[in-house]
């Protein structure tokens, strides 16, 4: 095979592997941002955090919220819920950042997947 073509195909492989790893990291993050509370399943988002913060600032302690399936769920302690999801949000997004940067700066398939030379 012509050398230039071989290099181009290697680069295509590298880009595909990179995109796949980033996509898997993104879905894993989405999964870890799912939070079960009072029988409901919530997707932790900046929107949910802001809304709960609004409720807390208005001294609302107990409120019915719609979960990811649009099922109404009564949350008995809004302040505690806000604390729990904020902590989870920071943990998960920090891990995501670390993984994202590791993959992004890798310049070969081997380094994306952290494969040792002797493997």
């Amino acid at each position, binding site marked *: 095979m012509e050398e230039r073509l071989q290099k181009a195909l290697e680069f295509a*492989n590298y880009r*595909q*592997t990179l*995109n*796949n*790893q980033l*996509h*898997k990291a993104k*879905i*894993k993050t*989405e*999964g*870890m941002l*799912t*939070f*079960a509370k009072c*029988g*409901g*399943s919530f997707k932790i988002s900046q929107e949910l955090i802001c809304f709960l913060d609004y409720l807390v600032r208005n001294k609302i302690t107990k409120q019915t919220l719609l979960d*990811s*399936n649009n*099922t109404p*769920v009564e949350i008995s302690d809004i302040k505690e819920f806000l604390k729990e999801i904020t902590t989870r949000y920071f943990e998960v997004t920090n891990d995501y950042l670390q993984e994202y940067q590791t993959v992004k700066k890798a310049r070969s*398939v081997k380094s*994306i*997947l*952290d*494969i040792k030379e002797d*493997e």
Partner: protein
Amino acid sequence: MSRGVLMFAHNNAEIDYVKIACANALMVKKNLNVPVTLVTDSGSINWAKEIMGENFINSCFENIIEVDRDYTFKNTRNFSDTSFSTKSLQFYNANHWQAYDLSPYDETLFIDVDYLIMSSALNNCWGSNNDVMINHTIYSPGESTLHSKNVDDMSIALYWATVIYFRKSSLAEHLFSIVKHIQENYAYYRDLYYFTSSMFRNDHAFSIAVHMLNGFSNNEPVIKELPIPGMLMSWDTDDIKSINGINDITLYTEKINQKGTYLLSRIKNTDIHVMNKQAVNRHTNRLIELYRDTV
């Protein structure tokens, strides 16, 4: 409220499902920290005890339920080990409708032995308001989108019976009763729902049952999806390259429409359905070795 995982394992001539179940049970204990019940038959469990020892088997499972295997049930399936090897073997999956009655738990995660638990994501199921949850959305290591499939091109949405959460409730009881009825009348439902394969698949039976329970519709489903974005599926054309460590696997993923051309894919802390059973079979010793010291 008791909670636990339920697995079915019935060996065939080549695949040691009980051994895979042992590896996965250790992975469940490490990641979900709940007890595991195994449903099997005397032939499969006696073989497992002979090769792995009774003490080890008992350390993997809190309960072992032996059921009678219906040897008149013939269900031949093509088991691919990458695109280059396919074998026609018996696939005993005739009794999944019994899961509701056999489960000793109030809340059960009913999983296939080859759905390797490498994260705590499914712990979000416990205490859910939904009596039953089953997944429709999937993705694979070589693709970059979440998607779903139908039972056949002209048919209803395909739900994957790989992982089912259920609470002892009338809705769950109805679901499993309908699955039993579909199995008993499979030829009729195959014609009714326009699919051609004669092999009995629980995925099809559960998809039809979900469709029926939803009032013969896939709109506004009464049965919701699991609290995960999608189920990660490695097809039987893929292979396991290596088990790198706890919750860390590298796969050869066959490129779409490019037979025999692979991408490498590393899976960390994400549950995965490895459909290449021979590949899992080849790596069970390594999985057991890794996880047995962690639980």
